[in-house]
């Protein structure tokens, strides 16, 4: 069931400006949906209608199955995480108090809040010494980490993010993007993320929604949008001026196969399943993993241990190809950075078939 559902949502302002024009969209649970488009396309307006900071003029929005007009706006907002570009940490409260703000307005006890604060800190990779510090003592990146932590405090299923990394420098932005991805995978939250940075959207989003002048032009995975654009603007926006440029923006996670022949050591039944799957994929090896999913060994069916090139889920496609060339391998393994969990495999043959489809679509034989 879609966690958030937009049905013909429209927002008209006094001067007859249609900030959002008949948008319909379903956001599935666990998705990372990026709303992207040029300035003024209505992406932020659409976002703010979810937590009723802006009220739609017409159309319906459903959150968790209930129409938002039936929700008490205060309860709705406490139920949804919200991160903004200006960060907006409360300067007069400590990091701890900032993070647990929503809990304190909901009346939770001090002990609960304390406990939650520590949890949240580790989630955003900050150590306990930060608890008693004040926002003014933190760097921009640290502040937005607190901002994200703050949004997670009430354990919401949905998190709204409005260009949260827009005010940060490039390096910090990339760091936080990586962390956000990690968190998304860890916590399985549904995230609606507004950005104007296409690269960011491609990197983070499981799906992208391209908007222009209030209308939702197309919603789809990065490769869907890239290889099967439904609107000339989408093509243009994704930069078909240089197809290759856009191709470079794709990441390993976009191109990888996820249903892998995995097996834990000593698991005879699992091994049989794995061999079957391997054959399906046209491979002759299986992946040995531990109980956490961490990759231990790539084992050829004849028992030999194979060497393999490694990339991360957010590695750009360009880099993936380079690794393939360097290792003279038609496949690379995608591991999660830090804990080495096996996420998928990028197989060159599947990439080729994608490309072939695209070229056919473009009338190139």
């Amino acid at each position, binding site marked *: 069931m879609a966690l958030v559902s937009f049905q013909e949502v429209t927002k008209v302002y006094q001067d007859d400006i249609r900030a959002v024009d008949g948008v319909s969209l379903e956001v599935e649970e666990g998705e990372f949906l990026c709303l992207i488009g040029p300035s003024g396309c209505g992406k932020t307006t659409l976002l703010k209608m979810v937590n009723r*900071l802006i009220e739609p003029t017409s159309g319906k929005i459903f959150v968790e199955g209930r129409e938002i007009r039936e929700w008490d706006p205060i*309860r709705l907002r406490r*139920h949804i995480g919200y991160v*903004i570009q200006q960060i*907006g*940490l*409360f300067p007069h409260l400590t990091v701890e108090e900032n993070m647990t703000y929503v809990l304190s307005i909901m009346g939770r006890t001090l002990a609960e809040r304390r406990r939650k604060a520590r949890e949240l800190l580790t989630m955003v990779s900050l150590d306990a010494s930060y608890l008693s510090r004040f926002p003014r003592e933190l760097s921009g990146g640290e502040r937005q980490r607190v*901002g994200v932590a703050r949004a997670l405090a009430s354990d919401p299923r949905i998190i709204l993010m409005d260009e949260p990394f827009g005010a940060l420098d490039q390096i910090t932005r990339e760091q936080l993007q990586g962390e956000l991805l990690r968190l998304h995978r860890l916590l399985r939250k549904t995230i609606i993320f507004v950005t104007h940075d296409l690269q960011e959207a491609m990197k983070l989003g499981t799906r992208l929604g391209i908007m222009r002048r209030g209308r939702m032009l197309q919603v789809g995975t990065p490769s869907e949008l890239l290889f099967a654009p439904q609107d000339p603007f989408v093509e243009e926006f994704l930069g078909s001026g240089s197809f290759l440029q856009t191709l470079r923006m794709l990441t390993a996670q976009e191109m990888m196969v996820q249903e892998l022949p995995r097996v834990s050591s000593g698991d005879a039944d699992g091994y049989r399943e794995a061999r079957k799957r391997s054959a399906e994929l046209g491979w002759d090896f299986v992946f040995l993993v531990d109980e956490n999913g961490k990759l231990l060994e790539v084992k050829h069916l004849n028992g030999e241990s194979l060497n393999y090139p490694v990339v991360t889920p957010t590695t750009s496609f360009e880099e993936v190809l380079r690794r393939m060339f360097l290792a003279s391998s038609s496949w690379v393994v995608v591991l999660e950075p830090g804990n080495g969990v096996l996420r998928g495999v990028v197989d060159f043959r599947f990439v080729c078939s994608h490309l072939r489809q695209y070229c056919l679509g473009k009338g190139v034989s």
Partner: protein
Amino acid sequence: MAFLARVFLLLLERRELVLTSLFQHIYISAVACVLIGVVGIPLGVLITRFRSWASGVLAVTGVLYTIPALALFGFMIPLLGIGLKPTLFALFIYGLLPLVRNTYVGIINVDPGVVEAARGMGSTEWQLLYRVQLPLALPYIVAGLRTVVVMTISVSTIAAFIGAGGLGVLIFRGITSYYTELIVAGSMLVAGLSVAADMLLGVLEKRLLRRIQM
């Protein structure tokens, strides 16, 4: 030098009158300030919520502020008679603007990102005000309060003119009996009271600001 010595001697001699006037003055100023605070701060908050009223309210209190204090006292007499009532009323009207304006500006100037974050997280309007806006506007509000207190202590000298007592008694009495030492004695006490009140509020301000870590 000898003059100052005479002033101090005088204060000692007439200590009954001096003490009575001093306590009256403190009382009048304190009550007036409390009234101003109790009405002024909520009023300032109110017009941040009802912005269309803001310019009107600020304009009215601004005009009242420009009326010379003495005239204000004069106006009050036909309406409220003499003594404490018209005095407090005139002081109240006079001191309203600085506090209302400072409260209003303090709240308006809170970082809009902070306000949006607080709203977006599900704060009620009251929580937004109480937990975010007021603490952050506190420096302005306290500054406004300090202005009002010092001003009220000074203007309260006129209270004596309409029979409410206070240190103005010493000053007026000194004038009517050509007793310069008395005038100086009264003025010194008013000034001293002002300085003391300002210092006290300064300490309070520092404490408060430390608590909210600005």
